[in-house]
């Protein structure tokens, strides 16, 4: 039995400190998912905290044969999707969203990075991606975040979001098309600094 399984077992019997150990381990993936979904640090903190509270209260429903991370991210994704649907989706416009940037987490260039210029470009890309993510329908957004930030397979995304694998594929295709269109509109003549097949995925 792994340390994580021991914590889960203890937490299922009401041990709050054992659950706090699980929170310590999974705080970054859960917070990141909420932050990427909601786009605001304050809302992400609230959503991540609610996710862990829900998980603690419904820990008896957790099937120990499945990965705990998948179960936790599933709760977070559904919570954020419901929250976004309640807020009513506002049509995306990069120009209209300057106010939101005040709340966004600023990623300052790392002066110790080996190539500060490339680091600045990477951060600018990440800022653009984060803003473009807000244009996606909540479930598509969750699929993209799970795929690229959490390296989930299509089958894992399907399990997390309660979708079929073909539905996940189609959502990922559509979402990346939308992101590419926004990218094209908001960046002057894209020029690849790296070749796409230099990435491990190609």
């Amino acid at each position, binding site marked *: 039995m792994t340390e994580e399984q021991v914590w889960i077992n203890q937490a299922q019997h009401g041990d709050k400190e054992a659950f706090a150990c699980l929170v310590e381990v999974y*705080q970054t993936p859960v917070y990141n998912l909420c932050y990427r979904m909601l786009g605001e640090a304050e809302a992400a903190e609230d959503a991540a905290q609610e996710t862990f509270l829900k*998980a603690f209260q419904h820990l008896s429903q957790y099937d120990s044969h499945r990965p705990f991370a998948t179960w936790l991210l599933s709760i977070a994704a559904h919570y954020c999707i419901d929250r976004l649907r309640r807020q009513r989706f506002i049509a995306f416009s990069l120009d209209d969203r300057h106010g939101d940037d005040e709340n966004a987490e600023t990623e300052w260039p790392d002066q110790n990075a080996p190539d500060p210029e490339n680091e600045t470009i990477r951060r600018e890309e990440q800022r653009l991606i984060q803003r473009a993510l807000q244009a996606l329908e909540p479930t598509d957004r969750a699929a993209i975040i799970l795929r690229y930030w959490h390296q989930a397979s299509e089958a894992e995304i399907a399990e997390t979001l309660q979708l079929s694998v073909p539905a996940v594929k189609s959502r990922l295709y559509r979402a990346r098309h939308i992101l590419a269109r926004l990218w094209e509109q908001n960046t002057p003549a894209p020029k690849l600094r*790296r070749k796409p097949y230099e990435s491990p995925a190609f």
Partner: protein
Amino acid sequence: MNHLPFEDWLLEESPLTPPQKRLLEAHLRECPSCAALAEVSLALQSARLVPPPSGFVNRFRQRLAARQQTQRRQFILGFALLILTVLGVMVGLSWPLLSSFLANPSRALLEWVFRLVAVCTTIQTWLATIGVLVRVGASLISPAIWTVTFLFLSLVCLFGIASLARLTRIPQGVRL
């Protein structure tokens, strides 16, 4: 411009052969929409996780304690309200009986004993009637038909239990 098969190659993210890589590179130099798709792929693949502000676990402990305290308060309040409602309904419903008992206790007690005897007699009569019907039915219908009937009913019950178990199974990723 024809984007096939380049768009599929980019979207599928599958490994490419050296000639395919050369073709794709040539296409990306001419096609802004496919270049944007490739740029987005690269940006997504280099995405990093954002950690929460420090002290997240302590804030969780505080929130959990506050939530549990609120739930305890709500439970006590709800329980007290339930007890009061049940008591109120019981007093309201039994008020005619209570008032007659308070007016003439011996007569009210006698009436209750008579009613109890009447109810017991009715139950006894019903049980005797059902016993007679079962005995007559058993002698009229052959044991084979009884066996088939009980077997069929058992199967229906089993089917029902299986359906219920399937419907109530908690899938992973359920909304909580």
